[in-house]
């Protein structure tokens, strides 16, 4: 069985051909990414791998930055947003049309207003968009009105793309869900376009093509086209899994050094740790499951410049001078030393490592000359400059590693940071309980800097430069569904009666008995996930059900507020 994995990253697209289940790497490829044409980047990588019989591949797994880019940059906004039971507070700028109709439920899932379908029908006559995002007040507690609205929209426009907020996420916040639904509706076309483009050229059948999600699981192409938003931040998930696969460790701190950024993630018991409040993209939290990563602006291409008589390590990325095609011409004047806006080539850690002989990447003469010029400007000897720059890179790395391990961000130059940095008479050594695994092409010289400052196993595995692509192949299809049984008191003829409510895919069911409600919740969770596995063309899988009570004490008695039934399925 041969499987192919391609990871489209910000700077490079990595590909790997592997033999499964032995997980032997047969071929690797690395091509630069064209951010304006992701399909072309995938295809270039595919050709570089020279696959002889695409139709014989058991699996073709792709991870793209498509959704992440779209979330950060925004796209063409060709969506109609339908709000049920709540007038949005802010103007909705992510949709070009907005329809607000009466309806919605309360926190217990009871109808507050009947759904005003006649208003919807009359509004539909004026709407031009063919994509619809629907979100109802407390739609996550009772999606009845969302479902009715969606059916009505499809009735009027059978070809429309309709996305309901509550089918994407289960968290409260109606406008957040509307935003996700709108983004998802918009991305659906782009994603299916990309999948089609890849399929038609590579000749890999759609039935064996899979896309990576942000939580590190694979989905079928059909599912990815329906819920493209779930692929946000799939790159970091791929690198975390790749790191753990290449070293074979079930617990590890994976550090992925790229061109622009370094991502650090934690693998625990063979699984990536997920972020508690969902993916952090472009400065805000999307309530979409994604890997918990610590990202810092440090990589092979981070700018090093001259400022106020001293060398500085910046935050933006430029291309390394030692890789520039016409470096001598660029170095004629001293502008390459300064943080000029729009600068393409500059001094970077790549140049530093080349000049010091820590890496073999680029032109050594140019790197040495560039750093000598910087040393002269700063009035330092070359060795002093190397020491200063290495210390800057080291302290930024140490600070972010401690952030990833403790989940507390140390302020730069703060007390804790000073202690971490150490001084001539204090050497701070971090003893880490898990091995550190380095992934990404320029990782080795970065990890070398930590020598003597970290007491743990540091592994840079073979094929680390295509670790992301390995991660894309070596994960599987799995799913997780939480069904909550909410215990809510109801007054019936002046007496308080406990009721147990379960939200289903089209409404809400109320039970008088807790056990029955839990059984029902487990049944709907299981059947939904089975359905999901069938759609993902997975035949052999394992289902597990966990029941957890959320309780509190009242007058010494333990009471249940809600029961969370978690169902998981995993490919075997």
């Amino acid at each position: 069985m041969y499987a192919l994995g391609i990871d489209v990253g910000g700077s490079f697209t990595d590909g790997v051909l592997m033999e499964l289940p032995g997980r032997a790497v047969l071929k690797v490829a690395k091509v630069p990414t064209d951010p304006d044409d992701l399909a072309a980047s995938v295809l270039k990588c595919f050709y570089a791998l020279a696959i002889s019989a695409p139709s014989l591949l058991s699996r073709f797994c792709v991870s793209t930055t498509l959704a992440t880019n779209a979330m950060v940059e925004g796209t063409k906004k060709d969506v109609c947003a339908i709000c049920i039971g709540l007038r949005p507070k802010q103007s909705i700028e992510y949709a070009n049309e907005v329809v607000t109709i009466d309806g919605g439920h309360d926190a217990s899932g009871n109808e507050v207003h009947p759904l005003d379908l006649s208003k919807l029908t009359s509004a539909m006559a004026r709407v031009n968009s063919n994509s619809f995002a629907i979100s109802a007040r407390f739609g996550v507690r009772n999606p009845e009105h969302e479902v009715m609205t969606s059916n009505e929209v499809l009735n009027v426009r059978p070809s429309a793309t309709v996305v309901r907020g509550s089918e994407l996420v289960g968290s409260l916040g109606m406008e957040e869900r509307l935003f996700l639904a709108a983004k998802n509706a918009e991305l659906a076309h782009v994603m299916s376009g990309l999948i089609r483009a890849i399929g038609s050229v590579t000749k890999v059948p759609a039935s064996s093509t899979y896309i990576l999600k942000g939580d590190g699981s694979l989905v079928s192409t059909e599912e990815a086209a329906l819920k493209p938003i779930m692929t946000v931040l799939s790159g970091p998930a791929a690198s975390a899994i790749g790191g753990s696969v290449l070293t074979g460790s079930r617990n590890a701190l994976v550090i992925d050094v790229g061109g622009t950024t370094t991502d650090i993630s934690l693998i625990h018991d063979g699984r990536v740790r997920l972020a508690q409040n969902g993916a952090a993209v472009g400065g805000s939290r999307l309530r979409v499951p994604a890997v918990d990563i610590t990202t810092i602006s440090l990589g092979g291409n981070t700018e090093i410049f001259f400022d106020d008589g001293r060398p500085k390590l910046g935050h933006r990325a430029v291309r390394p001078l030692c890789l520039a095609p016409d470096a001598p011409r660029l170095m004629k004047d001293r502008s390459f030393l300064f943080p000029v806006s729009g600068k393409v080539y500059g001094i970077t850690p790549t140049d530093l490592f080349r000049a010091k002989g820590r890496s073999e990447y680029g032109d050594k003469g140019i790197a040495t000359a560039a750093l000598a010029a910087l040393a002269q400007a700063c009035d330092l000897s070359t060795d002093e400059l190397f020491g200063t720059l290495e210390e800057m890179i080291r302290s930024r790395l140490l600070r972010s590693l401690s952030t990833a391990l403790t989940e507390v961000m140390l302020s730069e130059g703060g007390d804790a940071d000073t202690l971490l940095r150490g001084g001539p008479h204090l050497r701070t050594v971090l003893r880490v309980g898990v091995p550190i695994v380095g992934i990404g092409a320029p990782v080795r010289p970065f990890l070398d800097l930590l020598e003597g400052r970290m007491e743990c196993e540091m592994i840079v595995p073979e094929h680390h430069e295509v670790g992301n692509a390995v991660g894309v192949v070596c994960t599987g299809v799995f799913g997780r569904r939480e069904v909550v049984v909410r215990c809510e008191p109801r007054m019936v003829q002046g007496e308080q009666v406990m009721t147990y409510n379960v939200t289903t895919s089209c409404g809400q069911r109320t039970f008088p008995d807790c056990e029955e409600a839990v059984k029902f919740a487990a049944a709907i969770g299981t059947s939904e996930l089975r359905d999901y596995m069938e759609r993902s063309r997975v035949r052999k899988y394992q289902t597990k059900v966990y029941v957890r009570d959320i309780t509190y004490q009242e007058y010494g008695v333990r009471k249940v507020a809600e029961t969370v039934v978690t169902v998981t399925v995993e490919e075997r």
Partner: protein
Amino acid sequence: MVRHMDLLVEELLEFRARDPTRYKRLIQEGMLTELGFEIESKAAKVATVDEIKAKYRPRDVAYASIADAVIAGNRAKVEELVTASISKGKDPLDIVTNALMPGIQTQCELYDRGDAFVPEILMSNAAMQVGIKIAQEKLGDVPTKGKIASFVAEGDLHDIGKNIVVAILRANGFDVLDLGRDVSADTVVAAAKEKGLQMINGSTLMSTTKAGLKKTAETLEEEGLKVPIACGGAAVSRGYVETFNNSIYGRSPLDAVKIATGVCSGKGWEETRKALR
């Protein structure tokens, strides 16, 4: 579950026979716990009334006498002293923050320890308001620390606790909108939207009505208002409040002030919750 009543009584009697002083203290403290006092802090109480007064007393002699008048709840004296200070050219805002506020803070802390009672808080508050009014005439608007609403959950008519919290929050410089008792979640949410509130205080005495607090917290979250709710009251426990999001539990009126200070200075509910634990 509660054990058999007879067993419980038997144990209690046995305990009384064995250690009568401790029994007496526990009984007293048990009743105080109902009202929202912490047993541990009372047991470990070291500061005396005078020490607390000394802690807040302003250095300035004129200011110290204003603070004393506030503690005594003497409105006429506060009026006289504040007018005199202003005519001497003192900054009205300085008088509010450094003379009137220390007075009420002393009273609040005394109340929290059980050395002052509700009528005294109300009297001190009234005295302070007189002073603030004079300062305000001179100054225009005294800046408030934040905009808050207080309510008692739907179906509950017990509002003594809420009234104390409202008085203490007002005394601490918050602009408090009193929504009254038996208030539905929708009324609270509508008020939050209309008045641009930063935080909401909800309380309830009965365990049957505590679901109203949860409903309010969830409705605020669903409507995306980013307004957390501070919950308290005899029927409300930390355990219960932490079964839902967007909420912070407060045990005493002073906790309400701490929560309000945290939330109104821009902290989220998670951070404030952690800070109070």
